[in-house]
Each structure stands twice: as structure tokens, then as C-alpha cells.
């Protein structure tokens, strides 16, 4: 595994935003506290993943699914998360379904124009890639200003 330590951290700007939104207005957060929370979040992901994976392995599955993650939350005593997680998942699934229908429609339109063989096996991966591109787009705006200055 060639991950550098920084790669296993979550972006500081987003972590800071989440912290600020959780605290009352005007509360200061020390730099050290922010870094510590970020590290704690990474550890949380590892702990949750390990826990969820145990459930998957018990069920003899190689793929972690939503149920495993929810079971992990309960195991870790974060029951308070279960309700908001389930609600968020419902909205997410509806969105994904809508996106899938849109991309399938686009594909069908293309097929009508071009009479070539198509591969449907890549459906899941494409769905994920689209989602990641959208996620990445949220991050990029913060970095762009620096690049623009160089051209002067």
C-alpha cells in the first residue's frame, strides 16, 4: 500500500465547516483541536469499517453493504446516528435512481444514433464515477484561485 499519511486524512476545510456548523455561533476552535478532530474522524472511519466488515464476513459476503454499516453504528453505540442515517440514505437512493434513469435515457438516445455494441456491465462503475466527479467538484473551487495567479 503506497498511501502517504496525508491521503488518509480528510480535507481540513470541510472538517472545519462541519465543526463550525455544529457549535454555537462565534465559538473559536483552536488549530490543534481541528487537527485532532480530523484525525479522530479518520480513526472513526477505520473503526466503523472494521466493525462493518465483521458483519459482512459473518454473512459470508465480500462486499460491505448499507446494513453492515448500520449494524456497526449500533455495535459502536452510536444508535443516535441510526435515524438520521436511514433518512439520508432514502434521499440518496432516490437521487441515485433519478440519475441512473437520466443516464440510461441518454445512453438509449445515443444507441439510436450509433449502431455499435454497448457494454452494460460497467453500469455500477459509471454511476460511482459520476458521483465522485460531483464530489470532487465541490472540493476544487477552493484550490483554483491559487492556480489562476500563476498565469500573470
Amino acid at each position, binding site marked *: 500500500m503506497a498511501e502517504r499519511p496525508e*491521503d488518509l486524512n480528510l480535507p481540513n476545510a470541510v472538517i472545519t465547516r*462541519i465543526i463550525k456548523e455544529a457549535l454555537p455561533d462565534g465559538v*473559536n476552535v483552536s488549530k*490543534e483541536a481541528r487537527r485532532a*478532530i480530523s484525525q479522530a474522524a479518520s480513526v472513526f472511519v477505520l473503526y466503523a469499517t472494521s466493525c462493518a466488515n465483521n458483519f459482512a464476513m459473518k454473512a459470508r459476503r465480500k462486499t460491505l453493504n448499507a446494513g453492515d*454499516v448500520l449494524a456497526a453504528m449500533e455495535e459502536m453505540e452510536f444508535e443516535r446516528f441510526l435515524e438520521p442515517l436511514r433518512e439520508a440514505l432514502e434521499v440518496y437512493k432516490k437521487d441515485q435512481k433519478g440519475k441512473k434513469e437520466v443516464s440510461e435515457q441518454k445512453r438509449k438516445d445515443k444507441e439510436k444514433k450509433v449502431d455499435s455494441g454497448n457494454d452494460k456491465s460497467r453500469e455500477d462503475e459509471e454511476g460511482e464515477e459520476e458521483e465522485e466527479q460531483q464530489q470532487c467538484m465541490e472540493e476544487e473551487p477552493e484550490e483554483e484561485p491559487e492556480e489562476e495567479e500563476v498565469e500573470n
Partner: protein
Amino acid sequence: MSQTNPDKDSPASDAKKTISLPTSRVRLIMKSSPDVSSINQDALFLTTKATELFVQHLALTSFTNGSGREANTLDYSDLAKTAEETDIFHFLTDILPKKILARDYLNSLEQLRDEDADF
């Protein structure tokens, strides 16, 4: 509160349903865990969302219970205190150790040596 009826999509409830953390990064961390082969999309979403909820909960609990509250600040010691005192955050005690002055640490080392010497 707003005058619009609760059934309509309000920005606040939408924000709660979407996520800010990048799933790609979360997946990277998950993959570094041994024995994990593949992760379904819904599982990745839930883990990312849960992490956000975790950050909120840790920050707020630490602030509420910590002594930084008087100064209207959340600082490291508040987090370390919470990790030690709150059960669900016990798994963080290794990475959020309480800090002591070097002087105090050296003193307690000396005390241990003195106790051993009594044998």
C-alpha cells in the same frame, strides 16, 4: 421559523441529507483496512454521512463538557477530556491523550524509580 410548510424542501433539511466530505477520500481510508474487498455505494455513502455526524457530535460534546467553554473556545484539552470521560469516545484515547507538563512526567518517573529502589 420559516413561514413555508414543513413538507416543502427547505435548505436546512436538504443540507442534512447531502454530504460535504468527499466519498473518494473516505473510500481510500476504508480500503486501507485489512480484509476489506469491496464497498457498495450505499455503504460508502452511509460511512461518509456517519463520519460527518461523528465530527458534529464530538465537537459539540467536547465543547459542552470542556473547560474551554468559559473562554468560548474549543481546544485540544476539551477533546482529550471527552475521550476519557465519555464511553462512546473511549476508542479515541490513544490518539487524543491528555497532555501533561514534561516536568510533571519526569517527576512521576522519578517517583517510580524510587519505589523500585525500595526492593
